[in-house]
Every structure is written in structure tokens, then in C-alpha cells.
């Protein structure tokens, strides 16, 4: 299915001339004809949606950079100028700001889909690892971008996150000064963050190319999780175009409706009011919270009482994703045939959402208001601190204990021999006549 034969035949003279010099039309035609498993469901449309998100962010970002001024004296005002005076600037900025959130909604669903259907298992480990690299770069890019408007949340978010690097033993302090370009977050920091925020999306684009290259080499996974042998390619696959371009297109329309809902009706719902106050290095907002998509990791950071330990746990929470292909011991890819693992997966999704919820709360606040509890080590048991710790423990246990252990112990359901077998017993019948 991966190394399919090229079916492109240049027709006109100019196509033939071009094909023997730069076979770019052949590349596009082969890409569109890629044999794609015919049982893909809508969870598989997020790849296309993510590509669209990246393009939207790059296009709106380039336009915003034409009006934005990366200087501590002028950054906040230049963003407000974009909102008020630049033609259509409000729309472009709201699309860019909410686009980041949409990007993360899509990427989280895309990753959970990969986790559920075992898309990381051999021979697709590299696709998964490249995806993790993209995810990490997305977090970095989103963080850098959030600093640029130079509001209170921008400034203090940058302060808190760069301070994480200061937690590294021995080299932390010089590294922190190097990163910030001075003893504190200041103009030098804003300038370099702008430069890197402009650069990283193109790095992401490069890794996306590798991600797709690896995908087209090892072939797409599918909800049944079975490999499609070469001799079944004709029966079990369909060309990418028009079958899956149309399916992706329909999903994109639904996604854009959600996108538009945020941009036009609640453009600031996912942001923080404090970021409309210009940055003040002498006053910290009463309640610093990162953007929603970072909250689970922020919660993990706060769950650990030790500063460097918290930093390690937070990066570890992302780092563990890279080794999932080797943590999962099951021979069955799709959790459709792994009833035990499916339960743990559902709990994992709830835990992830729970961590996000905890990340937005004050650690000392009570989970159940008014319920009496007792002091356990360094905090009340009935506090977000201990709930976060419980959820953090499950997050890591899911990957490091449950995944290897269940894979060895469970009895999976019978896996179909092919993609079409569960639908049509014995596969697709040959056409008659």
C-alpha cells in the first residue's frame, strides 16, 4: 500500500517536458492517488484539519508581523492598533489567537486517536515520534506567541516559564540569563521571542513533511489496526482523492464552524482579561494561569513539591509520549479489540481533562467546598494539590505501568484478518459479470 506504482501519465507536450525535468505534477498526482484504507472514520480527519490550522497560523501570522512592533514600549500599543486601526486587523488577530486554540483542540484529538488505534506501533514508530516533535514545537511556538502582545499574562507567563529553566542545577542561572538576554524579562527577551515565534512554524512545517513522508512509507493505520498486505490493496483501499479529500473536506467545514463561533461570537473566551493590561514588571496578577492547552502540564508542574522535580515531571509528561511505541507490549494495535485497555484509555482521557481543570485552580482551594479534611504531608487532602497529585500519578502510571502490563496480561478479542472482513464476512465479494 505504501510503495504503490505511479499511475500518472503525462498527456500534453509541456507535461512530458516537465515530467522528465521536475516530476512535480507526478508527485502531486501520486499523492492524491495514495491508496487509503477504506474503513477510516472521522477521527482520521484531524490530520487534514491540522494542516489547515498550520497554514492559517502561518498566513495570519505573516500578516500580523507586518503591523506588530517587537519592542517593550510599543508592542502592546501596536497590537491594539491592529485591533482598532489596521483594516480587518481585528479579524486577522482573532483568527490567529483563536487559531492557536483550535490547533491544540485538533492536535489533542489527533493524538488520542493515534493512542486509541495504536497508530504508534510498528512499523509506524517514526511517524509517532515526529508527531511528538511537532507537538513539542507547537507548545514552544504557542508560548512564544503568547508573550508578544506584552500584556500582564504575556509577561508573567514568560517569567514563570523561563524560570523553569533556572531550576536546572549548576547551569540553570547562566542559561536563564542567556535565554532572556539580561537579568530579567525585557526588550531583549521580547525581540528574540518574536524572531523565534516567526521561525518555529516553518520548522514545524518541515517536520510535518517528514511526518507525512514517514506516513506514506509505512502506510496509514486504520480503525481495525490491521496491516493491508499488497495483494489486498485493491480490495481494502481507495484512492485518497476523491474519497478522502471529500471526507476531510466535510470535517473541515464542521471544524471551521466551531472556529468561526469562537472568532465571531466569543473571541476572548479562551484568553485572559489580564492580558489586556500592559505588562508591569513590578506587579504580578493575582492568579497566573497559562492558556487552556497547557493546563494539564502546568498542573503536573505544581503537583511536585520540589522546583526542579516539578520541571522534570512536566517535561517528562511530554517526554514519555516519545517512547510509547516501546512501552506498549500488546500485539494488537487497535483498542477496539482490547476491552481492558479501552477502560484504562477512557480513564486516561478523563484524567487528562481533570488535570486541565486542576491546572486552572488555586492549589490550596478545596475540591469539595466545605468538606472537612485533614492535613496530609504538605496540604489538605481535600485540595486541588492532592487531586492533582492523584491524577498526575495516573497519567504516568498509564504509560509506564498499565501500558506494558495490560499488553502482556490481557486477552484481546479476535482481530479481523483484513479491513473489510468485519463489514462483509469473507471480504468484499468479487464483482459478477
Amino acid at each position, binding site marked *: 500500500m505504501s510503495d504503490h506504482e505511479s499511475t500518472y501519465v503525462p498527456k500534453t507536450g509541456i507535461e512530458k517536458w516537465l515530467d522528465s525535468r521536475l516530476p512535480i505534477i507526478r508527485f502531486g498526482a501520486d499523492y492524491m492517488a495514495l491508496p487509503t484504507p477504506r474503513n477510516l472514520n472521522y477521527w482520521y480527519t484531524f490530520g487534514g484539519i491540522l494542516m489547515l490550522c498550520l497554514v492559517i497560523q502561518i498566513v495570519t501570522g505573516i500578516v500580523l508581523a507586518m503591523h506588530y512592533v517587537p519592542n517593550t514600549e510599543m508592542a502592546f500599543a501596536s497590537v491594539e492598533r491592529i485591533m482598532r486601526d489596521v483594516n480587518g486587523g481585528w479579524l486577522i488577530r482573532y483568527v490567529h489567537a483563536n487559531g492557536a486554540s483550535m490547533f491544540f483542540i485538533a492536535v489533542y484529538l489527533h493524538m488520542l486517536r493515534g493512542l486509541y488505534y495504536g497508530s504508534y506501533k510498528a512499523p509506524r514508530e517514526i511517524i509517532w515520534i515526529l508527531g511528538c516533535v511537532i507537538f513539542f514545537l507547537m507548545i514552544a511556538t504557542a508560548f512564544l506567541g503568547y508573550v508578544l502582545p506584552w500584556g500582564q499574562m504575556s509577561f*508573567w507567563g514568560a*517569567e*514563570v516559564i*523561563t*524560570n*523553569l529553566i*533556572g531550576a536546572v542545577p549548576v547551569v540553570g542561572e547562566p542559561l536563564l*540569563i*542567556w*535565554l532572556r*538576554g*539580561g*537579568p*530579567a*524579562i*525585557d526588550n*531583549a527577551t521580547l525581540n*528574540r521571542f518574536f524572531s523565534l515565534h516567526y521561525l518555529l512554524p516553518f520548522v514545524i512545517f518541515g517536520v510535518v513533511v517528514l511526518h507525512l513522508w514517514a506516513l506514506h512509507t509505512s502506510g496509514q493505520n486504520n480503525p481495525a489496526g490491521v496491516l493491508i498486505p499488497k495483494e489486498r490493496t485493491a480490495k481494502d483501499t481507495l484512492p485518497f482523492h476523491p474519497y478522502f479529500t471529500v471526507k476531510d473536506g466535510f470535517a473541515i467545514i464542521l471544524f471551521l464552524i466551531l472556529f468561526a463561533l469562537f472568532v465571531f461570537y466569543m473571541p476572548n473566551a479562551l484568553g485572559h482579561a489580564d492580558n489586556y493590561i500592559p505588562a508591569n*514588571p*513590578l*506587579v*504580578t*496578577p*493575582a*492568579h*497566573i494561569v497559562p492558556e487552556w492547552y497547557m493546563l494539564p502540564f502546568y498542573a503536573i508542574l*505544581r503537583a511536585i*513539591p*520540589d*522546583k526542579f522535580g*516539578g520541571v522534570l515531571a512536566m517535561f517528562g509528561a511530554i517526554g514519555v509520549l516519545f517512547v510509547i511505541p516501546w512501552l506498549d507490549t500488546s500485539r494488537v494495535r487497535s483498542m477496539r479489540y482490547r476491552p481492558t485497555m479501552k477502560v484504562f484509555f477512557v480513564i486516561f482521557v478523563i484524567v487528562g481533562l481533570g488535570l486541565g481543570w486542576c491546572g486552572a485552580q*488555586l*492549589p*490550596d482551594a478545596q475540591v469539595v467546598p466545605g468538606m472537612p479534611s485533614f492535613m496530609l504531608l504538605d496540604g489538605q487532602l481535600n485540595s486541588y494539590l492532592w487531586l492533582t497529585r492523584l491524577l498526575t500519578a495516573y497519567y504516568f502510571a498509564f504509560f509506564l505501568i498499565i501500558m506494558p502490563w495490560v499488553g502482556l496480561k490481557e486477552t484481546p478479542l479476535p482481530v479481523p484478518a483484513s479491513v473489510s472482513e468485519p463489514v462483509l464476512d469473507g471480504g468484499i465479494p468479487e464483482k459478477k459479470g
Partner: protein
Amino acid sequence: MGRHGSIGAHERCDVTESVELNHDGHGGGDDATRRDFIHIAAGAAAVGAGVMMAWPLVNQMNPAADTLALSTIEFDLTKVAEGMQVVIKWQGKPVFVRYRTPAELATIKAEGAVGSPPETDADRTKAGHEQFLVVIGSCTHLGCVPTFNSGDYGGWFCPCHGSHYDASGRIRKGPAPRNLDVPTYEYVSDTRVRIG
């Protein structure tokens, strides 16, 4: 590149039988040749040049000369009323100058060496000026500015992650790893300090 047998090399290079050479000029034995030397020397020079080119690209991110030039400020202590603090900006960071009340001083002195690392109040102030505390106002956890006169120890409370400092700026409770840092400073007169 695989090594060729000496017979093949002789035929191709048309050299006398006593000198064993491969077609790429390497000696037939393990002896280093002039070509090996050139390879290593050229490689080392390329790496050296690469590092020398990379260093300015890395080092440009360190604080620039004008940033470093803003490293000292002077402050007039008569601006602080007893029981209050003034927040000044030094090197982009807030500095707390706090004029402690006799009651606060008595509480702190009675506690002896506490915090992390354990320090007495005398370790953190200048002799003869114990009523004034000068500390960098960034929480040693993740750099938020702690709020004045709150928390469980009558000093500061960091709203970000719940660190409690006492009126000597020592960490007493919460995730912060260290006491609030005391910057380098000196009294230029009885009522003026130079920070930095």
C-alpha cells in the same frame, strides 16, 4: 571506500612493485600517510572554524553592553515610611526596600536562623541598619512578585504557587527553594543605598 588488493592497484596506478598503494593513495599498511594527515587537519580546521562561527551566534543572546550598564542604582531611604515597603526596579527586577517596625524586628530576632538556607536576620541586613531590609522581589520559585504583608508569617505571600515568606524575606512554607535573594548593596550615606 574498500581497499583494493595490491595487484589491482599496481595495474591501475602503474607504480613499481616495491611501493604498495591503493588507487586513492592510501598506504597498503596501517601507517598514516600524508593524505590521512590532510584529512584530519582539514577536518579539524573545519570543526574549529565552525565552532568559532557558531560562538558569536550563541553569545549574541547574552546580555548586551547597554543592558549590563544599567547595573547600579541609588535609593533614598527617607522615602520609606516605617512599616511600609517601596518597590524599585533594578535590572528589570523589582527590589523591595522594607522599613520593619520594632514589633516585626522583635519577632524575627526571636526566631533565630530559619528559612532555606537557615539564616538569621543579621545575615540578611547591614549592621546598624537592621530596620531596613533590601531584597529582590522575585519569588525564588518561578519569579512572581510576592504581595506585601500577607501570608502566614507576616512577610510576603506569592500568589502564583503559594510560597510564604517572613518579614526577613526567608522562605517558611511553600514550593520556593530559597529565601528571597539579597542583592549586593552598600550604604553610601546614612540614608542612601547603592544597589548593584
